[in-house]
């Protein structure tokens, strides 16, 4: 799985997750996706928030005619499920509001879904993930070339985000080593962590690397691409913006993985207003601060750069 994350024709998969619900994952997916499409990229957005799907609402679609349900229930091909939007080079694959729950998806269905996502003939697939850290959500997050997490400046969102990133990394380590034939080793050591003096995930990874040189090589290679793009949504002041800088610092020290603070979006009523009016923000409210901040986020993610933060400290 880890080695197949290249979209057909050198495109990129972007996945937007983050743990807590209501932080604006769907907003970030829809607005960054639209931004890419406006720049001429062929874009498909997939709503993987199974059970709580509402990506279509950000494009003024009230009741999608087709949805992922057909993929799971009758095996319709993913490429036949796209729904048109206002832009000719942008389409959606809407999620399902009713019939299925995330944990009822079978492993084989999941792999089939991932295979078909890779085969979509576009430049960018954007995946909107649901809340929580369920294995299916994490696995979808991990197939992405750009892993984006969204949070708001509040303690529960921050807490859930740590949990989400930690579980993603743990799963990545486990899946990677499983692929190389070390299926049980991670869990085995983790279960006996006290006797090994391991207190957290970073210790575990360091222990694995120090104990087995071939595992070091594997993890160094495979984790090189594990890079998180951080987006802080609904910021109200400079202190909120600087939270992103602090989170980057803590996450780096806590898990030892690279974090890029890609940007922030200010709190603005125009976001819910645009949804209510059934108008996509990035097509109808381009002069607003939040639209410009979304543009910056897209630039930074594409170029692997970070946002400029104001002076002062939080």
């Amino acid at each position: 799985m880890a080695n197949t994350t290249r979209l057909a024709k050198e495109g990129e998969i972007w996945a937007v997750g983050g743990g807590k619900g209501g932080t604006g994952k769907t907003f970030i997916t829809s607005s960054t996706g639209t931004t890419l499409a406006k720049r001429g990229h062929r874009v498909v957005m997939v709503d993987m928030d199974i059970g709580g799907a509402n990506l279509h609402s950000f494009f003024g679609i009230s009741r999608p005619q087709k949805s992922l349900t057909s993929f799971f229930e009758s095996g319709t091909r993913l490429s036949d499920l796209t729904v048109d939007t206002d832009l000719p080079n942008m389409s959606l694959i809407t999620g399902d509001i009713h019939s299925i729950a995330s944990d009822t998806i079978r492993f084989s269905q999941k792999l089939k879904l991932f295979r078909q996502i890779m085969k979509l003939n576009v430049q960018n697939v954007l995946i909107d993930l649901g809340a929580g850290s369920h294995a299916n959500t994490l696995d979808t997050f991990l197939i992405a070339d750009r892993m984006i997490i969204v949070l708001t400046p509040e303690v529960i969102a921050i807490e859930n985000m740590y949990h989400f990133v930690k579980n993603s990394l743990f799963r990545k380590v486990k899946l990677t080593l499983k692929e190389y034939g070390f299926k049980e080793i991670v869990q085995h050591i983790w279960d006996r962590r006290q006797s090994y003096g391991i207190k957290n995930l970073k210790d575990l990874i360091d222990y694995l690397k120090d104990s087995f040189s071939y595992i070091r090589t594997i993890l160094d290679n495979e984790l090189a691409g594990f890079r998180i793009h951080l987006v802080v949504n609904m910021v109200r002041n400079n202190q909120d913006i600087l939270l992103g800088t602090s989170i980057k610092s803590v996450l780096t020290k806590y898990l030892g993985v690279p974090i890029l603070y890609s940007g922030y979006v200010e709190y603005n009523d125009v976001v819910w207003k645009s949804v209510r009016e059934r108008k996509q923000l990035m097509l109808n409210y381009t002069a607003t601060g939040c639209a410009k901040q979304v543009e910056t986020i897209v630039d930074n993610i594409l170029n692997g750069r970070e946002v400029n933060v104001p002076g002062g400290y939080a």
Partner: protein
Amino acid sequence: MTPEEMKRHLDVLELGARATPSEIKNAYLRLRKLYGGTSIVLDPIAEEFSDKKRSKILQEIEDAYAALLKAGREREAAPMPYAAAAPAAVGAAPKEAEPAGPPPADLVFSGPVLREVRERLGIDLLEISKLLKLRGELLRGMEEERYEILPEEIYLKVHLKNLAACLRLKPAKVVDDYIARYREWKSKR
């Protein structure tokens, strides 16, 4: 301070190589507050950051800031700092232990050299722009030697003189060097 030491200290403060003095100070205060007190960023995983671990982080932050501050002060105290500030490319090693002498005779103050001097002094273009009330674009044009966007020679000389003063360089030498290159370009047009 060697460039490696400099980089290590800046890494601790989570800053890039071009951090300005005010950015260094802000980063220090922010990190000290983050790891020294309570915050919504650290609280959710407080158990991962034991007192011992925090003290170690805080000590590193203090050490890095103290070292950077000391280096900054020494640089300011030097009577003519361009010996230390002159680019390594033209042969002047940036060793602060060496007495700050005059710049090497063959050092030509071209746009890129002026830029390098400015960066080594840790001065942001924006600061100079504010101080001299000159557009950042124009100052950048001077550094990048985009002569076509620069004003007439007589005005350019004034700007160069002021810029040299900001960088604590000898104005006459900067103006002569730069204008010579400018004229050469103009004659080829």
